[in-house]
């Protein structure tokens, strides 16, 4: 009589394990095949020399050697990517400002929210074309506004100048991504319990102290998420750069990801492109770890 409940529990937990396995299997399969396996394959490929017609040979550090010592484009692309990454915290700060403005009982707050977020669901290719037109010397709104306001006397060729091309693409990218940051920060703001603010106000703390002592610390998980998304954005900015400038005048807007594409599918140098991918991914890991420490060592409400 006593063994029956135990047997039933065993059966139930075994059945549950089977169910869990069945439910998780398809998703895990997709991730293994399309995320983990490619990453490992990239690492392996970066140590090989491989042209699609001949079998792969092991060459050790040759690809990395070429990348670091012989390739000027790599360093230019790396520098551009670093600048691009540095612009993300600025975008996050702007989004925080917008989120705080929207986070109130303002009439029509949801309308403003939708308007700011409207740029995110757009096709990045379309965004690139739109902003390419905005920057145009003759028909573009930006040059027109600058000249009408008397800031400049003649049109600036934004996307054709070595100095302005990268900032111009960064502005376009910020325009698109601002809405997403705002939504994440807004949900973080709405999860701060108001009684903390009440207590601070009763204690006579000024608005600035309230912001730095209550808002920012409570926003750490949301800020970390935004930083990670911002870093992943340096990968997904491929669409924007490819259509807007395709690497820019010379390589002024060449990001690592566009260079990877050009090496992999333009020159069909899969092995070299793999080495570049591993380099960029390593940089991503390092930056994520730094961001993790910067928000206090705990990435927030992760389980």
């Amino acid at each position, binding site marked *: 009589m006593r063994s029956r409940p135990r047997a039933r529990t065993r059966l139930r937990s075994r059945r549950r394990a089977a169910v869990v396995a069945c*439910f998780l299997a398809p998703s895990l399969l997709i991730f293994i095949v399309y995320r983990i396996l490619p990453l490992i394959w990239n690492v392996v490929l970066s140590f090989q020399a491989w042209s699609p017609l001949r079998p792969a040979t092991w060459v050790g550090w040759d690809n990395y050697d070429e990348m670091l010592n012989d390739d000027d484009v790599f360093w230019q692309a790396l520098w551009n990517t670093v600048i691009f990454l540095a612009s993300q915290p600025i975008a996050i700060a702007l989004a925080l400002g917008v989120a705080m403005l929207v986070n109130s009982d303002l009439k029509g707050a949801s309308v403003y929210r939708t308007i700011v977020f409207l740029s995110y669901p757009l*096709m990045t290719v379309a965004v690139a074309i739109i902003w390419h037109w905005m920057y145009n010397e003759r028909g573009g709104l930006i040059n027109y506004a600058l000249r009408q306001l008397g800031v400049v006397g003649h049109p600036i060729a934004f996307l054709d100048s070595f100095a302005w091309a990268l900032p111009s693409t960064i502005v376009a990218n910020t325009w698109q991504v601002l809405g997403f940051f705002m939504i994440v920060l807004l949900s973080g703001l709405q999860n701060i319990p108001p009684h903390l603010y009440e207590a601070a106000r009763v204690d006579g703390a000024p608005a600035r102290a309230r912001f730095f002592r209550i808002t920012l610390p409570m926003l750490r998980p949301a800020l970390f*998420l935004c930083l990670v998304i911002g870093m992943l954005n340096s990968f997904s900015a491929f669409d924007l750069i490819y259509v807007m400038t395709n690497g820019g005048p010379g390589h002024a807007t060449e990001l690592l990801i566009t260079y990877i594409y050009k090496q992999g599918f333009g020159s069909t140098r899969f092995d070299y492109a793999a080495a570049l991918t591993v380099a960029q991914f390593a940089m991503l890991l390092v930056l994520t770890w730094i961001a993790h420490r910067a928000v206090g060592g705990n990435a927030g409400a992760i389980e």
Partner: protein
Amino acid sequence: MRHKLRHAALVAISVIMLAPFYWVLKTAVTSENIYEYPPHLLPVRPQLFNFVDVWYLIPFPRYLFNSVIVSLIAVAGNLVLNAMAGYALTLPFIGRRSVIILLLSCTLIPFQATIIPAYLITAHFGLLDSYLGLALPLLSTIVCIFIFKASFDAVPRSLIDAARIDGLGELRILLRVMLPLSTPAIATNVVLSFIWSWNNFLWPLIITRSPDMQTLPLGLARFLSYMEDTTGALYAFVVMVLAPGLLVFLMAQSAFMRGLTTGATKG
């Protein structure tokens, strides 16, 4: 007074965010030579014939059809796979924590870091240039799994226990108890997976070989290499391409916003 300042600031921000939309729309319907300086702020003699020209110039219905099929596959796959995985993660089992950590670290692997091997794998399966090959990498996303998981975690335990006592199997619990209570999560999942698959450019760029398997973003990029005349035909195409995505988003946006701002994206 504070309210007025907030409104003013928000209006200014809205103008900045909407200006590119307006500029492109204006360029698409104007009759002037768009490269003439100074451009007019309002469309000159607005007309819709640019859209007619674009319709006959490029195979818009074909691109639209391809995009719709791929997005349908991706959204359907996402709903099914993510709901199952999200539910499985709420059940206690050995190694649950490791699986969660594994999935979270997979979010750090951006799609663009996998393109070359993913291309080789897809070629190996013979799925190049096919709808399934286009949709396969997007069939499940980790962010959406955690959105479902957070939503399922919020379902009161009493309901689940009652269902278990009634003898419902796990699948039935998922369908009858969890999903009906998670409509915001479903809406968020549908919208996010639709956006990501509809706007995907790099993967179709690599995978498609024949011109009539191309999706809308590819068609748009290809159109850039057509001759550029002084009419707003290209921008009419941009408006045509953006319209379906915006329409779907605007329809679903209230449920979507609700799903995102109820803290469902924590972690």
